[in-house]
């Protein structure tokens, strides 16, 4: 059961899924299969491993031994090449109804290898309302061998009609120890570093891994956490905001520039650019310009999303910092996410009131909401840094 073993600190969910996998196997053998159902919704905070849980479940459904971890089926599911698993990863800001309809059509087919056809929809919360509605019928009454696995941060992110058609699997935030243990055993990270990364990432396994393995990511976090200290005048706030937004733009550029180029060249090739031979013209064939424009729109939406995600990571680091400040102010005996900066946290806790801290935290949360509502990032972040400012005593 190596697949389920990878799910850190999710014993309850694992038990449910294993039981369902066993029931599914029974159903395949002609039994009643009570305990298996055709639509699942995996929820849990970011980094708790929703898609990994879904993947593990998919493997356990497709593997003859319910997820042994070393047979062909398990391996294919792991690398994403299994013919019966349709893996949807929305890259842009949202997932459209048109795309969903195509997906529904795919889900209507019978499994190729005879066990189950699995539709794994990561980030299903990105589906627009129209898209979610297009999905309703499909997840309510799929063909007998089709299973829908949706992933979303919380059940509230899906419309009620979807929620009521799915069985919800709730993943919890794994403990710091569990995350550190995984980092140390699986990635060979030194125990000290593993503990630091696990604390700083607050249960987000992927983020903890990046923090532990990538110097640049750690440096970025240091930059962000130095912001609260630097905000004394309004000029500083503007500069800090400028830097935050610029970094996120650079992230988006770095992640997309090379990819965009490859995609565009590929598409141009598909539409006949550079082809030679009789009866072919040099330029794009009919429809090429439209397809290119569509690709451009998709790429732009993807860049915006990466930019927002990158900003969001920074904002969450800031929230964690002020949460620690609040914990110290209230004398709560919990472990600090920023243990490495305890000194600063305590200093700020002494020089401000809990009200200040709460006000600042809500300014950060408001900034996140504004970013999601398409507010100009610079304006939103400026408003936030100004609200974080420590007013100089008059």
């Amino acid at each position: 059961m190596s697949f389920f073993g990878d799910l850190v600190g999710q014993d309850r969910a694992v038990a449910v899924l294993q039981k369902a996998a066993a029931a599914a196997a029974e159903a395949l053998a002609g039994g009643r299969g009570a305990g298996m159902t055709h639509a699942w919704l995996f929820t849990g905070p970011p980094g708790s491993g929703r898609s990994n849980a879904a993947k593990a479940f998919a493997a356990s459904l497709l593997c003859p031994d319910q997820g042994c971890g070393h047979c062909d089926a398990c391996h294919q599911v792991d690398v994403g090449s299994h013919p019966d698993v349709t893996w949807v990863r929305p890259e842009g800001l949202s997932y459209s109804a048109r795309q969903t309809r195509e997906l529904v059509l795919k889900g209507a087919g019978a499994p190729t290898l005879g066990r189950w056809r699995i539709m794994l929809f990561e980030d299903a919360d990105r589906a627009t309302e129209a898209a979610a509605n297009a999905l309703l019928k499909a997840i309510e009454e799929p063909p007998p061998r089709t299973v829908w696995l949706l992933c979303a941060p919380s059940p509230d992110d899906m419309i009620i009609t979807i929620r009521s058609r799915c069985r919800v699997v709730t993943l919890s935030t794994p403990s710091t120890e569990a995350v550190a243990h995984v980092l140390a055993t699986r990635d060979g990270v030194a125990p000290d570093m593993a503990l630091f990364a696990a604390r700083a990432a607050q249960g987000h396994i992927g983020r903890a891994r990046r923090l532990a393995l990538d110097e640049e990511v750690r440096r970025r976090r240091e930059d962000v956490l130095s912001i609260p200290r630097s905000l004394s005048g309004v000029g500083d706030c503007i500069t800090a905001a400028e830097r935050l937004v610029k970094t996120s733009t650079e992230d988006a550029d770095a992640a997309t520039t090379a990819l965009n180029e490859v995609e565009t060249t590929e598409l141009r090739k598909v539409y006949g650019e550079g082809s030679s031979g009789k009866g072919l013209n040099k330029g794009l064939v009919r429809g090429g310009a439209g397809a290119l424009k569509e690709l451009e729109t998709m790429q732009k939406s993807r860049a915006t999303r990466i930019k927002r995600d990158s900003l969001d990571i920074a904002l969450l680091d800031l929230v964690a910092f002020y949460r620690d400040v609040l914990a110290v102010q209230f004398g709560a005996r919990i472990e600090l996410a920023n243990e490495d900066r305890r000194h600063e946290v305590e200093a700020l806790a002494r020089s401000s009131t809990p009200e200040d801290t709460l006000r600042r935290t809500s300014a950060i949360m408001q900034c996140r909401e504004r970013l999601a509502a398409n507010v100009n990032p610079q304006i939103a972040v400026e408003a936030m840094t100004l609200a974080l400012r420590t007013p100089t005593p008059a």
Partner: protein
Amino acid sequence: MGGCVEFGWAWHAASMANPAPVTLVVGDEELLADRAVGSIVAAARADDPEAEVHDLLGAKVEPGELTRLSSPSLFGGRSVVVVRSAQDLSKDVIAEMVKYTAHPADDTVLVLAHPGGVKGKALVDGVKKAGAEVVTVAKPTKPGERLDFIKAEVRREGRTISPAAAQALLDAVGSDLRELAAACSQLAFDTPGKNIDEAAVARYHRGRAEVSGFTIADLAIEGRLGEALEQLRWALATGVAPVLIVSALAGGLRSLAKIGGAPRNLRGGQLASHVGMPPWKIDRVKRQLSGWGPEGISAAMQAVASADEQVKGGGTDPAYALEKTVQVIVASRTGR
């Protein structure tokens, strides 16, 4: 064969006594292109008042139609074929047009109007090569050129206009040439006397047609609430996007914060490179900075951020959100 004429606003139908068999009018300024086409048609009519005019739309011209229209009619007489939006012509028809241009019919005047650009470029290139007369209409881009346009329009009506009056008219009507031309001819019709002066313009036109977000931002930051709101209303009424106004407000406040927060010992060039603004702008912002304190700037920027949220669908009425923001900005000025 085949000349090239730059079509300005001083150009008159009379200058074209005998229209070329095929004329291509290139340019996306609608009024000027219309006039160029009109003058050619008028010239053809002047030659032969009986001439039949066929006005066609590019997308609807079918193959063979040109041949039908240009072939001699039983009753004799000339014909004028005008093809508007020639960029929409289909491939076959374009080939037909190019072929026709090389050997035009005797009694037919063909006028093609193309907005320029890439669509239907084969037509422009082909017809040019085949020897058509090309008329290019250039869109005036600079304010000075628009003033010249106004003067030329008034002169067409046999009047003169003072420079100040021309400027006032441009401010009030905006940069759309069709509207300017209409305003000019209306003024010439309504005003007695040869010269049109500022008073005459002020009698029929008031206010500004085009207000940029920056004007509003400057007024609000300088604390001129009444004027700021008035200009805001003008801007909204003339279709300036609320998002642009918000970003102009944010930009203005951002400059205040940058200059206000810069180290005091920086001067001139050093300051300019520190805040990344040109020196003339720094002087202006420094003047605006009096009456502003850090708390005020902070409050004003919060208001702008929530306004951006409101105009992007978070609120029901962008105009209300903007007005409120302008008020908050002005009210924040007194803050320390």
